């Protein structure tokens, strides 16, 4: 899973699915004009074997879904429940300060 996340293109594909879940290969490839369709397919295969993306067939098309469960498990592994509130407060502070021009 860490290997899957270590690549910028794969994080870009996850970002695309986070914005709009259930995209097809064609739609994902359109968002990565620097890559061939085959290149996108290879990256998707890595994400699928890491469990981060789950493919589903809908009619004749294959759609790709972002699976948040492994990310949640990583979060739970290192984040004690007592520290969650403080961490969230700091992240919220960062986003509030950084959204100002």
């Amino acid at each position, binding site marked *: 899973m860490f290997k899957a996340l270590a690549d910028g293109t794969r994080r870009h594909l996850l970002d695309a699915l986070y914005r709009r879940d259930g995209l097809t290969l064609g739609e994902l490839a359109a968002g990565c004009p620097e890559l061939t369709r085959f290149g996108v397919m290879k990256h998707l295969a890595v994400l699928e074997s890491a469990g981060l993306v789950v493919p*589903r067939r809908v009619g004749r098309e294959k759609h790709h879904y972002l699976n948040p469960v492994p990310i949640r498990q990583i979060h739970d592994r290192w984040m004690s429940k007592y520290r969650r509130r403080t961490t969230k407060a700091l992240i919220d502070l960062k986003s509030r300060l950084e959204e100002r021009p």
Partner: protein
Amino acid sequence: MSGPDHVYQIRIRTTPERLWAAITDPEETRRYYFGARNTMGGPAGSRWESRVEDGTLFIEGEILESDPPRRLVQTFHYLGDETARTEAATRVSWEIERDGDECVLTLVHHGLEAAPGTRRVVSTGGWTTILARLKEYLEA
């Protein structure tokens, strides 16, 4: 045919029969489903409900398909939130596949486009918490 809105998948070291029991037996669901007793063991056409410890009803619906220990489809109407309560029922399916000494559990949620209140509740840690705890419970 429109696709699902959310797909969650988790691998759990257990058998399909054991996993099915953990999903459908109210005495087991309370161990990982925010303390709630879920009555999802009935056949297609029966009602199901989820009640928290003090007896408050917080989710209700109908069983649409029940094929133990492989597939369960239910309508899902979340009542624990003012907005969600007024929304149309959504649809959840649980799919169990054996893979060696593990099971792959896939949970698919449909109909959230028309139910933003329910979407908010299930996507801000709802399903991920339940599935992570279910795994912890069964593998303990």
